């Protein structure tokens, strides 16, 4: 049974003023949430309840994403796959999910783990998109995974409290940071990371339809970036008489319907 991780690379946040696209040419670091995903995979392997053949780290990104993969390997992945192609630049979340899913289809994982929230605000969504393309059950915001009879019992915090959901494999699970405390890599693991297998795949290698990815394949386009509305300067009360001050505070709160 294969377990796969899908770390996605988060970079320095900058908007290119011409294209209004996130400039991802800056330093790439492993998305902190994805370290939790790798740790979860490691714990499942070490726990023994689930038979884990291999942990594979996959990422989509420019040249600098290789460092991300090396970090993933130093944290425990057995090998990594780098999906990179000029045609992928500017992909939105749906394009990214689709592209990753195409690579994953080639790998046929038993479980796909991701960090649930990426720095650039693509919260909890890549997993859902990937799952849809892979036609697998999906859960996000998972903070505890317990294998039970070959299925996974997952706990997650939803709108009304904690849900416990049973999921059959293969599945796509996005984990939250509360799930575990990621280990630090040992020096040996860091130095050995470069020697582990790293496959590079292009759009063609992964059978990705170029029309569905990249800036051209995106189904949304940023048309303007503006500074946020300047907040009106607030009111300041110098407290001389606390009763009067408190009365003013209460009135202010009531006016805004902030008192239940």
């Amino acid at each position, binding site marked *: 049974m294969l377990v796969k991780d899908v770390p996605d690379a988060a970079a320095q*946040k900058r908007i290119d003023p011409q294209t209004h696209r996130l400039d991802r040419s800056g330093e790439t670091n492993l998305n902190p949430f994805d370290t939790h995903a790798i740790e979860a995979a490691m714990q499942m392997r070490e726990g023994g309840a689930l038979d884990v053949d291999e942990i594979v780290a996959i990422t989509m990104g420019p040249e600098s994403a290789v460092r991300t993969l090396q970090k993933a390997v130093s944290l425990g992945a057995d090998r990594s796959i780098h999906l990179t192609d000029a045609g992928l630049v500017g992909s*939105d*979340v*749906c394009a990214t*999910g*689709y592209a990753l899913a195409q690579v994953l289809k080639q790998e046929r994982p038993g479980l796909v783990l991701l960090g649930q929230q990426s720095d650039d*605000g693509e*919260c*909890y*969504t*890549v997993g*859902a*998109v990937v*799952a*849809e393309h892979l*036609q*697998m*059950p*999906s*859960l*996000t915001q998972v903070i505890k995974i317990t294998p039970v009879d070959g299925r996974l019992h997952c706990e*997650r*915090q*939803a*709108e*009304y*409290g*904690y*849900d*416990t*959901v*049973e*999921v*059959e494999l293969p599945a796509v699970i996005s984990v939250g940071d509360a799930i575990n405390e990621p280990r630090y890599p040992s020096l040996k693991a860091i130095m050995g990371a470069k020697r582990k297998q790293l496959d590079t795949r292009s759009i063609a290698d992964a059978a990705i339809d170029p029309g569905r990815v990249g800036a051209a394949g995106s*189904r*949304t*386009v*940023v*048309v*303007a*970036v*503006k*500074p*946020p509305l300047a907040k009106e300067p*607030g*009111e*300041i*009360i*110098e*407290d001389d008489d*606390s009763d009067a*001050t408190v009365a003013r*505070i*209460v009135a*202010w*709160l*009531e006016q805004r319907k*902030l*008192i*239940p």
Partner: protein
Amino acid sequence: MSSILVYVLHHDGEFNKSSLGAVCEAGRLAAGLGGQAAAVVVGGDDLSDDLCRSLGSYGAARVYRFRGPEGLAQPAIDAIATVMARDSHRYVLFGGGLLGFEIGAGLAARVGGGVTMEVTQVLVRDDRLVAVRPILQDSAVAEIDYVGEPGVIIARLNAFAVTSGGDGAAVVEDVELELSAWSTRTRMVRRGERRGAEIKIEDADVLVAGGRGLGNAAGFDLCSQLAKALGGGVAATRAVVDAGWYPYSAQIGQTGKTVAPKLYLAAGISGAIQHKVGMQGSEHIVAINKDPNAPIFEFSDLGIVGDLNKILPKLTAAIEDGRGGREG
């Protein structure tokens, strides 16, 4: 003909507040496009006719009701996709929250539509919708257009106000739910388990936060009493968590949690940027600090320069009295 679909979450016979806000917004936007808003609900017996019709008063002309598992995303994707295949709808709106994101993103993948997230505002422009959302840690705002249709809009939690007006009753239509193969492979074992009495601070509408100005750990008693009166939770700055006055789970800031409640009341907090980045998205910020030069006064909506030891208990009492008065 509906132009905007809205997913409405419910639990125990009550609709989710953020979803209701989305319904109101959908009604408004649909009118702007010359169409109507329709709601999609998925659940069991508690989705009574009356309950579903009541969505009309929030702005939905029609409600598509599906019988199926609650609280899971993929059956809802199947439901909405079914509706979209039958009748043409241009946009689908979600009121944020976990399921909103899961369903919205999966749906976008299913129907090949564009998706925007964390949306705080939607504009009608040239007979189309444009989504507006903050980016780069709230330091800028982006306007995002859709390439083609349908478009999926996932709002930030509670981004839209709930206005119940109108006596319209929605038309309820029952639709057969056809689950895709993978949607049957997730099973809800236990839903909505509340753990402990603590309110999860990221979900709280009101937070009373304490900083070093409280003086000592006992100062948090003042905060929790006020929080109780306001129906909210208690949060803390890094400095006081470091000092052991309050647990790390309530820490707000660069190395803690990020929150955006309706009301953030900061007591004895200076407002250094390491803290500010964790709460600057709050709708209303009230600050009490005895230092008139505290940076927090530069971004608070209401600032009180005074002694929190005097003000907090009086404020708590005034609010409780007011409530007692109103209820009495």
